[in-house]
């Protein structure tokens, strides 16, 4: 959505005091309760590792784990080993009892989703990926293998979350913002508690505002409320460490439990809001965009390629050092592969969703990425450079309308009858643009009655190309003779000819008279 349109929608939301639906369809698929899990973290101020974690299948009780002191790496490791079993099993890793398949045997494809409260929790996935994927302590121990598996799972989820067309790992607050425009600024719009409170609604607008403010005071990110951490938790942690040092097992156990209770409440709130966000989208009255099926298929495919294949190989006895680095892609080819896939994500998402959502179409038109105008003429003639006659629509659009299409741009009609064509020419007449569209795309059914469109308003949009898969295929070919320059193997050639002529004289002698 363009910034100007976003502001208009935001102002409408402000005026009404409640969130406004954004989009004519729901563009985020929501998995069934048994296939949807929420994941949330809490960390100690200044620390990177989690202090407490929560994982909850929507249809089950939550698993909430914590350690008494969020600075102690050993207990944190133990906690994460337990989390590894839950997450990796949910993702289908064969190392943890999963089938290692994204397809249920003999059944339909199954989308399993992990929802996190917001982007800060996604960053925690990166931290775990970075710290544990290549853990070396206790080489060969079950504990280390579990931590590495968790690191790989978190790495897969973190990388996947950055791809625009993925639907396996969902940032709950972003999911809500994509479906609604809220009467708040961007910073406040990150707060999942605020968003869900607005969407719960209230018959009294003033009490809704109060409820929103109360919800907003409770932090959602992995960082705790500083007052809670300083005044309530810090003394408990200090006492716990003293008791632990003194060998007072009973006291340290009691204090550890007290800390765990506070942290459990924090985690439970984050999990509950995350699942509520999923339910809001699942129960929304708007239809689900039929194009999300493509996104689901793409995500299942990526899960198999990016996660399950490696897990299966490791389960089969291969070592785990082939896991992608948390920091970067060290091989030029892997970097290019991932880049091409990520860069194509936005196009793939648009291609899947655009034609099924009238509001997305309106946004595209308002941004100048399509044509909406009146068919003022219909001609039958032979296009330049072709042999067969084709039908042309001359579409008039106001000069004031944003317009950024070029000659040769391929277009599709939103109703698919007739399917579409390409822009042959753009001319100006008074305060209008006249766009001549050669409607050469063939329809599968009865030939369209072009004349019936004369004088009617039509909408034509370019659909992004789907070159990602073919580019990836081409990238996978055997290295060619120029591979030396791409860091992909081969030997740099050396200059092989001596030359002491004057090339400028030679060039002049080659020129036409």
């Amino acid at each position, binding site marked *: 959505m363009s910034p100007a349109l976003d502001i208009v929608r935001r102002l409408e939301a402000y005026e009404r005091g409640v969130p406004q639906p954004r989009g004519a369809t729901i563009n985020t698929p929501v998995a069934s309760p048994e296939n949807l899990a929420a994941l949330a973290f809490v960390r100690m101020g200044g620390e990177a590792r989690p202090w407490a974690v929560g994982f909850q299948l929507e249809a089950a009780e939550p698993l909430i784990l914590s350690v008494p002191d969020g600075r102690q790496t050993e207990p944190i490791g133990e906690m994460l080993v337990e989390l590894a079993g839950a997450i990796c099993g949910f993702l289908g890793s064969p190392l943890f009892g999963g089938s290692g398949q994204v397809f249920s045997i003999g059944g339909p494809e199954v989308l399993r989703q992990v929802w996190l409260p917001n982007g800060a929790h996604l960053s925690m996935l990166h931290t775990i990926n970075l710290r544990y994927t290549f853990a070396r302590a206790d080489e060969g121990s079950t504990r280390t293998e579990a931590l590495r598996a968790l690191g790989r799972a978190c790495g897969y989820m973190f990388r996947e979350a950055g791809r625009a067309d993925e639907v396996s790992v969902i940032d709950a607050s972003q999911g809500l913002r994509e479906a609604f425009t809220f009467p708040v600024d961007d910073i406040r719009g990150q707060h999942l508690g605020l968003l869900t409170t607005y969407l719960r609604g209230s018959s009294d607008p003033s009490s809704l505002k109060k409820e929103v403010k109360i919800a907003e005071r409770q932090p959602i990110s992995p960082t705790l409320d500083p007052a809670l951490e300083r005044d309530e938790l810090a003394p408990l942690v200090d006492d716990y460490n003293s008791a632990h040092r003194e060998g007072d097992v009973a006291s340290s156990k009691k204090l550890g439990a007290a800390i765990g209770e506070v942290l459990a409440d924090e985690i439970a709130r984050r999990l509950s809001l995350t699942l509520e966000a999923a339910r809001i989208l699942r129960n929304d009255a708007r239809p689900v965009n039929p194009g999300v099926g493509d996104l689901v298929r793409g995500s299942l495919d990526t899960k198999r390629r990016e996660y399950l294949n490696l897990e299966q190989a490791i389960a089969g006895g291969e070592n785990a050092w082939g896991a992608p680095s948390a920091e970067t892609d060290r091989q030029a080819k892997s*970097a290019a592969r991932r880049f091409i896939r990520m860069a194509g994500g936005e196009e793939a998402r648009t291609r899947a969703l655009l034609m099924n959502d009238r509001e997305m179409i309106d946004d595209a038109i308002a941004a100048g990425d399509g044509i909406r105008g009146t068919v003022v003429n219909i001609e039958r003639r032979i296009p330049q450079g072709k042999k067969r006659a084709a039908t042309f629509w001359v579409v008039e659009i106001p000069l004031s309308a944003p317009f950024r299409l070029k000659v040769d741009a391929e277009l599709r009609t939103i109703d698919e009858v007739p399917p579409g064509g390409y822009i042959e020419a753009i001319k100006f007449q008074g305060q209008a643009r006249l766009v001549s569209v050669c409607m050469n795309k063939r329809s599968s059914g009865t030939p369209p009655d072009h004349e019936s469109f004369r004088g009617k308003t039509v909408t034509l949009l370019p659909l992004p190309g789907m070159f990602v898969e073919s580019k990836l295929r081409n990238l996978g070919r055997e290295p060619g003779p120029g591979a030396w320059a791409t860091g992909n193997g081969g030997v740099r050639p050396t200059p092989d000819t001596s030359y002491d002529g004057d090339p400028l004289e030679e060039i002049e002698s080659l020129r036409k008279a």
Partner: protein
Amino acid sequence: MTRRGRLKARIDDVRRKLLTAVVRGEPLVIVKAPPGSGKTRVILEVAALLRSKGKRIAIAGQTNSQVDDICRRLTEQFEFPVVRFCSSGNRARGDLGEQVTWIDQTKELPTGAAIVATTAAKWGWYGRPHAPFDYLLIDEAWQLAFADFMLLDQVAPRMVMVGDPGQIAPVVSIDTARWATSDAPPHVAAPELLLNANGADPVALELPASYRLPHDSVRAVNEFYDFEFESWAEPADRGTEFGSPDNPSELDPVLDALSNRSIVAATIPTPPEGPPLEEDRELAQLAASLVHRMVERGGRLTVDGEEIEVNGREIGMCATHRRMNSRLVESLGPDLSSQVLVDTAERWQGLERPLMVIVHPVSGTTDPTTFDLQTERLCVMASRHKVGLIVVSRDHVRATLDELLPVAEQHVGLPDITGRGLGRQRAFWADLEQSDAVLEIGLPISS
């Protein structure tokens, strides 16, 4: 020796080094070229010389129209036949003459000595059905991301890359933090990476002259480059002259200033609440009124000895935002909107006009982001003119740039692009101010 004589000697020295390098078989030659410096001419000469020695040459452009232009110019200047390799939809445009053979099937590619031209994207599909080509010549190479360059490894073992490092880098809409410190960041322009890559050892050359820019525009535009270049044009070669106005206008001083120098800025007051978002109708009206006034006053241009009457076709307009471009088109009105080319900086790459009117990229914000401070767009916009450039803007630009403290967002070990961009933006505006070329226009603007 005259200045132009010295410059010609420098240009010939670069041409000689380049042509000698390719005849000797240097595996990688990278040529940095300022705007309008004859990049395509360099490609044509390399192709012709290698072809004369029986080599197989592949030429990669970035767009079909660029490739068509290369084919047209090759056949105009040299006798060699050229093969235009195209996708099936583009076949038989048929306007490139008989010396050009169009093919759309890989199996139709010639197996012996030949010059074959197509887009870099099309070469990405090339699967080596025959022996590889001897050389791959890449035009506008700074527009090619490294990931896309990797797809070209099937074509040839040796490469020549020619491009303008001041142009807009490959557009990337995703977060590239994952590859920021990689040895082979896939989003970076291929020649930029190869110039510094271990083991690439390119022969690196720089073209020293811009044929397009007028003599006194080069200093301002050179701010955007890390190498020095001069203008080929002498002061007397380019000029603008406008007839005496029957009805004086507040815009006349801008046009009169343009008669004395090639870059002039016209500013209007910034509203207290800040400049309008995205679409600045008053600024669009100023820009359009300037275009109308240039035509009304019967302007005449001197371009390398030729006298041209100013009409809409000699003028281009550019704003970074598409909505602002729509306002420019609307403000021009029915007659001029069909003549004046109005587009974004991305679309202006590779094009030129005698006169340009551009909207300064920072005009629309008093809180510029990293994107606003990127110099490539301003560089492209400020280097499309052969005779004169008018920069229109709100008057806060100087203060905004002076007061801004950019956040250094770059990763450790990487250059501070934002800070460098800010420095170059400041230098460009300061150059205009020091030459008394920033003129204030009051509101409202008479149309």
